[in-house]
């Protein structure tokens, strides 16, 4: 679906951002793209969307070179950016203007998503709050039924009920032929949604695993006391106790804590990576 091979890219000469970056993302998954500020997440998403061109290597989506921005590729991808601008038109006019470009656009689904998000349908887009606009774009993005859906910080600006509504509509929208990539810092918002984790650090992909494999190999627990005899890979202490990641030696089932995993991989990368190799 998304195939990046030996990608090279730099904004300035002699200051490469990506050198030999390769990544393959398949349909039927919701990928969480995680990384610190400046790690290169947005640049990678722009490469996938065809908004930036590779200096070397290849970036292809559904077999199309993204840099060519051919209509056949563009109608199979939708980007929900973190910052966006909507024209001064009503929702209905927005649909009338944009929907014809997407052959599988489902108008009924669009209005049902809006209803789910409690968005008034007869309002001008510019009269809406940032959160409401974001919900309109997310609803439109899901209704386009494109094969690739990219979201950059989709839960930024959403209130607490909206975040759970967002998870609900996303879970309902994912199908075997779609690939969704969500770049976020708010990992707790999407813990239950993401089924594959891609961590980018220092402009490299340092971790790429599905959640099932992670929970098979790692165990996430909250302990009252740290015990040196336990195979602890990473611990984070708080008032509630010690959140730990351990080797899952007994094949116990535990719920993934993505924030903990992310911090663990960034601070104690080698032993965790060795477990997955």
């Amino acid at each position: 679906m998304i195939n990046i091979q030996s990608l090279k890219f730099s904004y300035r000469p002699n200051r490469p951002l990506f050198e030999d970056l390769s990544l393959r993302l398949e349909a039927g998954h919701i990928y969480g793209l995680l990384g610190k500020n400046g790690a290169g997440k947005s640049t990678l998403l722009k490469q996938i969307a065809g908004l930036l061109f590779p200096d070397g290597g290849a970036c292809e989506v559904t077999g199309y070179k993204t840099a060519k921005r051919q209509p056949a590729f563009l109608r199979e991808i939708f980007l929900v950016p973190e910052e966006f601008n909507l024209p001064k038109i009503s929702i209905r006019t927005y649909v009338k203007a944009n929907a014809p470009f997407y052959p599988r656009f489902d108008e009924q689904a669009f209005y049902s998503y809006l209803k789910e998000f409690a968005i008034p349908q007869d309002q001008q887009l510019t009269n809406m709050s940032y959160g409401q606009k974001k919900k309109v774009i997310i609803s439109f993005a899901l209704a386009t039924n494109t094969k690739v859906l990219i979201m950059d910080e989709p839960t930024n600006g959403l209130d607490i009920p909206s975040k759970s509504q967002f998870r609900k509509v996303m879970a309902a929208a994912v199908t075997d032929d779609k690939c969704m990539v969500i770049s976020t810092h708010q990992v707790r918002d999407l813990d239950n949604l993401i089924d594959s984790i891609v961590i980018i650090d220092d402009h490299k992909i340092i971790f790429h695993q599905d959640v099932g494999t992670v929970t098979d190999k790692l165990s996430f627990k909250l302990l009252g006391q740290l015990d040196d005899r336990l195979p602890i890979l990473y611990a984070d202490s708080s008032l509630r106790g010690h959140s730990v990641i351990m080797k899952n030696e007994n094949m116990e089932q535990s719920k993934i804590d993505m924030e903990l995993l992310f911090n663990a991989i960034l601070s104690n990368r080698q032993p965790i990576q060795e477990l997955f190799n």
Partner: protein
Amino acid sequence: MQSNNVLDFRRLGYYFQYHILASWKSYLLGALSIFGLLMVVPAFMLLTRNCPRELSEVVGFYYFGLFFGGLLFTSMAFSELASKEKGAQFLMLPASHFEKFITIFLITTVGFLLVYHIAAYAALLFLNKVSLISNEAALQLDWRFLTKEDGHIYIYYAYLFCHALFLLGAIYFARLAFIKTLVATLVCLTGLYLLNTLFVWILFAGNMQTAFQNAPFILVGVHDGMYKSSVYVISEKMINSYIFIAQYLLAPVLWTVAYFRLKDKEI
């Protein structure tokens, strides 16, 4: 059936509809401004009792409006590219670069010229009324717009060249495209003039009082002896080549460069 990835008329229609739905309010406002500004001229003349008797006395306003209005409008044609958010939305909309380019091209050429000339004709009718009131005679239509003999048609060729230049500028420069295109054009023309002057000076230095006795690429004035001076002009064939290039090649070449610049645009 797989649709064409460069030009599909149905998709072009969708893009045209998309563009108009998103921009019709600003276009309407622009059209009303043109009407208003062109009506100000005869209204001012009526108020000051200073009405012209001949069209040639006021035709300058028409050409000024055509160039200033048309080129300002053209330089704002790709204003989406000035903002990352709008630019990403523009580039990711599933229409080809050619369809996006041709839509803007048609709106800034055919669309603008149509609106401007309807407004100018309305202003002319108003001016005629003003003339009937002030001079008790109709305005004499002594200016022919499309004649080759007096060179008036070349003003439209110049307009098309400037349009192509400002369209390229609109894509090339993210912000303040009008000013930047104007400055860049002046810098390029001055550079060309100085380069030509340098070569002229190298070739004719011994016979020139100053290096600036030349019209770039057309003629050069030299002194033959104390009291005699001559002008070397390029051949008629060369002049005809220049005219051909100016009429038929310059604008299309710049339009093509603008299209490829749009294709290469990154956000």
